[in-house]
């Protein structure tokens, strides 16, 4: 009985800061608007219909594509990293984790601004290459899709490495030894033992990276130079520029549905012992 009380702060928190805003967004997304964007409580499906127009579907497709690319890169870079950390000796492991988490203590915006400095025409990378005579004129590193992807991968890779690492670190070494005793090559061990057993971590990692990647707007603004518009930018514009909170809410709802679908698919892979993050 007593323990139940302990959950009250959390329940209140969730009610006020998660459920109530969600309900408000859902309601707004079906409301009509006045010329100045005031919420008029009259049911309409207009904003969802509007999203089905080719330009907005195009924005959706771009965001999904860019998020998918970032997620794949995070996986390709993050998985080996998690493996290296998990295989290190305990003392080394702590140092490696520390080194890995340390940059996260710097503000996310600050880190993104730092990339802007690094990548700009007169930034250190271009200056170095120029002075070494490798290039004749500065490379256009900033303000393109590549820079946006880089920014996403850099900022979101911890979300991939940490869950994969937590699964790999808990893995029973005996299984691998047994496989080796039975004559499996290291490729076979990885494909048949390590990879399948680490799937829950991988799936958590994919969701953890994909979700912020699909909704980011700061990274595309700063590193993309406003050249492209992603779902996050579109929503931001509706609230701040177009005075169309209703449409912005509808896009947010659509995005949430997409994320719920992704999570439902992934929950199939959840392991019994809760190797993932949820």
């Amino acid at each position, binding site marked *: 009985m007593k323990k139940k009380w302990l959950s009250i702060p959390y329940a209140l928190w969730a009610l006020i800061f998660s459920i109530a805003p969600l309900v408000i967004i859902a309601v707004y997304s079906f409301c009509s608007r006045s*010329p100045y964007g005031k919420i008029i409580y009259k049911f309409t499906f207009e904003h969802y219909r509007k999203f089905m127009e080719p330009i907005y579907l195009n*924005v959706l497709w*771009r965001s999904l594509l860019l998020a998918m690319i970032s997620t794949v890169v995070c996986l390709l870079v993050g998985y080996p990293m998690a493996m290296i950390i998990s295989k290190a000796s305990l003392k080394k492991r702590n140092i490696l984790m520390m080194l890995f988490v340390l940059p996260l203590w710097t503000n996310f915006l600050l880190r993104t601004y730092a990339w802007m400095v690094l990548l700009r025409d*007169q930034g250190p990378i271009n200056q170095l290459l120029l002075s070494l005579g490798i290039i004749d004129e500065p490379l256009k590193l900033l303000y393109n899709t590549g820079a946006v992807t880089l920014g996403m991968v850099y900022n979101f890779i911890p979300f991939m490495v940490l869950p994969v690492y937590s699964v790999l670190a808990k893995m029973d070494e005996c299984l691998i030894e047994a496989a080796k005793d039975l004559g499996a090559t290291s490729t076979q061990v990885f494909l048949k033992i390590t990879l399948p057993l680490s799937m829950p971590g991988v799936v958590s990692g994919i969701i953890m990276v994909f979700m912020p990647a699909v909704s980011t707007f700061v990274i595309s603004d700063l590193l993309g130079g*406003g*050249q492209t518009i992603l779902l996050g930018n579109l929503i931001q514009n509706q609230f*701040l*520029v177009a005075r*169309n909170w209703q449409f912005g809410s509808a896009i947010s709802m659509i995005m949430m549905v997409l994320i719920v679908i992704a999570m439902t698919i992934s929950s199939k892979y959840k392991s019994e012992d809760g190797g993932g993050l949820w």
Partner: protein
Amino acid sequence: MKRIVLLMVVCMLMVGVVGCGQGKTNEQGYYDKLNVYNWGDYIEPAVLEDFEKEYGIKINYENYATNEEMFAKIQAGGTDYDVIFPSEYMIEAMMNEGLLQELDFKNLPNYKNIGDQFKNIAYDPDNKYSVPYFWGTMGIVYNTKKVDGKIDSWDALWDEKYKGDIVMIDSVRDTVGITLKKLGYSLNTRNMDELEKAKEALIKQKPLVKAYEVDAYKDMMISGEAAMSLAWSGDAMLLIDENPDLAYTIPKEGTNLWFDAIAVPTTSKHKKEAELFINYMMRPEVAAKCAAYVKYATANTEAMNLLPREDVENELAYPKGDLFEKGEVFIDLGEFTTEYDRIWTEIKVH
């Protein structure tokens, strides 16, 4: 258990009571706090300190980057800003939405210092809700070392020669507005055909554009990373100070003439102190200090006498002749705002 809950409730109530009791009247009879919400980099900080000292009112100073951001916050409610600095079309929108308080000009004797040409402009025809602060134009700031000859037309921003060296402003009204001007239309157009033509022009221009920025363009121009950029006049003056290779031009097709004014939103519960602050801001020496710091053109004629002559006589900062012939003032687009947003999205997606 009940006791703990009760205790929590009591604590919360106490926080509420203390929170309400925070502000009080000072010895001069003023409420001792004022919430000022202004653009970034748009005031001489010392001016705020002087006001605090003189009247014993503590100023809570916050910044915004766009009119729309400010509008969204005020409209959403829950804030208690006393003084805001909206641009002309935003004043119109806020007036229509009933978000501005009518000013009592009896409390604003310094209003006489404002130039007559800046009074009763279309956005606030009877000048009831706002007093002008700064004004200016939009133009092209360019690097004379990277650009051959003089620029006098918006067409320069469409010149293939400068591919990858052109910076545009990441703001629908400004970027679409000057494109409409280039095509010879009004920048307040509600004609879908004209808007479509502007869209096509901007899509054509896109491969030449290095970036769409709001503030970062200043860095790029100072460091010489870009050849030219769309810029507001005051920013351009600051940039030229930093990098003498830069020049500013107001293209011949005409441009956007803008005004930023000071107003009191309905969220304010301390109009008396807000008006005190506005009146203080219109003192010639205060307005001059701000103009010297911000570099935009002040609407305060008395303050102009206190500024260095080379600043005031600079025709790029203070264009001579009939202002309204050179520039068109933004009018709020009302329901058409969403159409501008839609073509902006189309341009960005392309």
